[in-house]
């Protein structure tokens, strides 16, 4: 039993200290999900101005997400615990920002997919 616990602890420490994803891409993409549905993806490297994105849940509760140049975070949430707000602003892929009561997830990853960004394509 102690061996199982020790193995789990070792696995977790390794997972936390050495995150597996490493790519050459400098671009950080942030995706906003609600109930498993992808609502919006931002390329944080291309964001030049602060903006907000509001997610309204079926029960009418709101999450206000602020997108800043290079980072993203939860500005306000209508939930009782506000854990997602306390998670602050993320600029690199690590653990996602999650608001469990409203089922909203902000996930960051490296990549350069073609995504919605107002000044992404300027010819």
């Amino acid at each position, binding site marked *: *039993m102690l061996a199982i616990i020790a193995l789990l602890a070792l696995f977790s420490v390794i997972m936390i200290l050495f995150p597996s994803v490493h790519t050459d891409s400098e671009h950080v993409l942030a995706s906003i999900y609600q109930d498993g549905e992808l609502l919006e993806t931002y390329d944080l490297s291309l964001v030049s101005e602060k903006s907000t994105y509001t997610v309204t849940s079926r029960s009418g509760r709101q999450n206000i997400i602020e997108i800043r140049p290079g980072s993203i975070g939860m500005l306000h949430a209508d939930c009782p615990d506000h*854990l997602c707000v306390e998670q*602050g602003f993320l600029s690199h892929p690590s*653990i996602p920002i999650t608001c469990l009561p409203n089922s909203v*997830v902000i996930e960051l990853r490296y990549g350069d997919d073609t995504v919605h960004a107002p000044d992404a394509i300027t010819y």
Partner: protein
Amino acid sequence: MSVRKLTTLALFTTLAIAIYAVESALPTLIPIPGIKPGLANIITLTVLHRHGRSQALWVLLTRIFLCSILFGQAMSLLYSLAGGLCCLLIMSLVSSFLQRRFLFITSIMGALAHNGAQLAVAYIITRVPGVLAYLPFLIISGIITGLFTGLCAGQLMKYLPRSEAQ
């Protein structure tokens, strides 16, 4: 169920609710969903050892439903139920072949089961595979908080008069 036993169990349930209320008033140290001390499990563990599985189940269910009505919301009930029931199931399995002095191992296994079940519910509800990235953090926190609540329950049982349990 004798009046004495009913009163004792009701007292335990009240204690669990009070512990839960105090815990939710504490500021969060680590803002990751699912990481919390889980101090109310001290009571579940104590009742499991002193009164057996079915009594522990009743105390747990009463605590979860009352806390959900008093402090929570519909969504938190689902998480609490999944976590609490898995925790009790694993703790009653583990404690049946471990000695009393290894109570902390029972408690750690319970905390791990609790966190695992809650993460599974979080994955089912959000349907974003990214939330599984919380797993290592939840394992570490489960080991630490499980150890702490296990040691607390051990101390509690040392001072709790045995006669009450009969």
